[in-house]
């Protein structure tokens, strides 16, 4: 199951607040899909230190799709 957070028209720090809230209830195997126009380095730093993995892809219109999951093992 995937939770989608469209942060493209939200002012910081709203996208980060929503993402952290979604991670609180994230089950193993589920993912959070975050849509932004920039790379959220402060969020990446938090994810790295708290056992999450993520992948990032860019769309033609400059949107970045960031998929976050719990690290396995």
């Amino acid at each position, binding site marked *: 199951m995937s939770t989608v957070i469209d942060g493209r028209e939200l002012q910081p*720090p709203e996208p980060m607040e929503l993402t952290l809230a979604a991670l609180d209830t994230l089950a193993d195997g589920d993912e959070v899909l975050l849509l932004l126009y920039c790379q959220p380095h402060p969020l990446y*730093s*938090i994810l790295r230190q708290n056992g999450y993995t993520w992948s990032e892809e860019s769309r033609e219109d400059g949107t970045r799709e960031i998929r976050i999951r719990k690290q396995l093992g």
Partner: protein
Amino acid sequence: MHPSLSFDQAPPISVPYRFFLVAPWFGVLAGILLAWAGGEVFVSRWTPEALALTHLIALGFMLQAMCGALFQFIPVAVGGNVWRPELVANTVQPLLLLATLLLVAGFLFGRPVLLSAAVPFFLLALGGFVVVVALALWRTPATGMTLWAMRLAIGGLAITVLLGSLLAEALARGLAVPIVELTNVHLAWGLGGWALMLLAGVSYHVVPMFQLTKPYPLWFTRWFGPLLLLLLLIWSARLFLDLSRWLPLVVLPLLLILSAYAGLTLWLQYTRRRKIHDATSLYFRVAMLSMLALAVSGAAFVLWPVLGADPRSAVWLGVLALAGIFVSAISGMMYKIVPFLNWLHLQRLGGPISAVPNMKKMIPAEAMTGQLRLHVLAVVLLLAAVWQPGLARLAGLALAASFAWLGWNLIGSVRRYQGFRDQIRAAA
């Protein structure tokens, strides 16, 4: 909500704030200097007061603020790690402050020995800063045009400092160097290669993020920095070659790419779906309109040399660049960075998210927009004072009051941070 999460190791909040809290008061000094000296200051860009005023704004306000912002921006925006940020900031900031005061006093009181005395402090402070920041920018695994623009900008700062040091020594010791040509190249690297390059690079990141616009088109971000660099290199060739006949071919394209950046930023603001009219957006609008005004009047001075021959035309461009563009853009950025940093560092305390107040509570919106209006009035008065010297004292007072209000707003924000921090700690 997420008290168990550990947050990133961004530098302590005191690192950027050490710079931010000092910067506006240099602007207050600049305003007081103008109010005291009056209309004679703007007769030409070479008056001692004009040189002192320029460096109070460029070094005292702009550079302090930009250095402080980079310490925070590098980890947050491009994921880089600055080496020992607390130690570097605690060394660079007071040295830069001292060097700026020495240089300004040297200009103002006609004491070349003070110009010479400022040089080692500048070289030490900014040399160290450039090395540490350059290492962080080259080691980060991040990619993107913001990063590249920042790398070019830090090179621009290094060139500006070296040329400025050479100029100060030349004035102090009477070295046989072409002072006017060297000054023109120094200011082009300072305002173009450093300040504008950094502003553009930061804009690619923060304009879409904070002002909720679409991203800058990729073709623009790919070409703007390299083109600006190329034009600056050609402009610098005037030190070695007689380019006077060809200068319009450098200046006009330069003004064209300035217009493209300013026009595009205004277009992105205009076409965003969610309109936000906060102080940052408005400040950016003022900066970009000033950039367009600079491009149009600069082109007029080049195409109609009679206009450009008046020494006040250079002062006009200087006022637009310093007060109109960079003071506006930097003030607008501070109004977003400072509340964001307050929020980020309060989050890191590990309390429940409900305990961390909304970013909008860090500086009252009315205080920011009121200060913005006063700044716009100061810019208008400064521009009028270039041609109507009787207005210079009033313009100086408006400038001093506007910077003092900015400084007061920032102090208020830090006080609020301390209050919220104590509340969260007490609750925990």
